[in-house]
């Protein structure tokens, strides 16, 4: 299990390779997601602010929730903060489980949490200037799916 918050750019393909290499042969399924900076609307950079101490702890809490809800063998979360250029990776999530359903659902759950509850504050920098971004209503809807649909333990092979 690992949660890393960093300012340095990272390569999702290398992260997946490292994640796969540290497995002991148990997982039958590895699901990964990488989120990237969208360069739409004349965006020149995205800046994410974190709050030392709080941000990492809250993300670690989400990781614990995911492992409580699904029978996961391993989880890796990498999240960048600071200034980022279009196309660069912002976030990487990997979930390993014996079977695919748990891995898919846990990765989806983690991403919904990271998109709404993670303590980050986002600023878009365009040629016209900089502005702070508040959460989108859709993000809250995505995250609220998990409040009613309690994660299930996997029973079928």
């Amino acid at each position, binding site marked *: 299990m690992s949660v890393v918050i960093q300012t340095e750019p990272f390569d999702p393909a290398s992260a997946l390779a490292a994640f796969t290499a540290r497995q002991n042969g148990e997982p039958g399924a590895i699901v990964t997601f990488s989120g990237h900076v969208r360069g739409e609307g004349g965006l020149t950079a995205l800046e*994410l602010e974190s*709050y030392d101490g*709080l941000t990492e*702890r809250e993300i670690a809490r989400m990781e614990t929730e995911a492992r409580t809800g699904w029978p996961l063998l391993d989880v890796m979360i990498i999240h960048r903060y600071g200034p980022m250029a279009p196309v660069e990776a912002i976030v990487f999530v990997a979930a390993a489980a014996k079977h695919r359903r748990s891995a898919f659902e846990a990765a989806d759950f983690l991403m919904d949490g990271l998109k709404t509850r993670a303590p*980050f504050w986002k600023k878009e920098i365009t040629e016209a200037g900089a502005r702070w971004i508040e959460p989108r209503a859709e993000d809250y809807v995505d995250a609220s799916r998990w409040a009613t649909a309690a994660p299930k333990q996997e029973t079928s092979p």
Partner: protein
Amino acid sequence: MAKLVFIGRLRDIAGCTEETAALPANVRTAGDLLSWISSRSELWAEALAHPAVRVARNQELVAPGDAVADGDELALLPPMSGG
């Protein structure tokens, strides 16, 4: 004295990253802290009226009814945007 930390767009309003302040006697909870800062100006009142504004005490999220005290690091967090 408490250390007030301003995050995101609240820092733009504060004009600084942090300040050291003596908490008035009637500021005993995180909710009191928000009310006190809101009384500074119209701009502050508007920024802190959003229901998703949170307070962190010593880097832990707290509820409006939770205690705050001198010696604390108290961060004012605008609505989190997520990653």
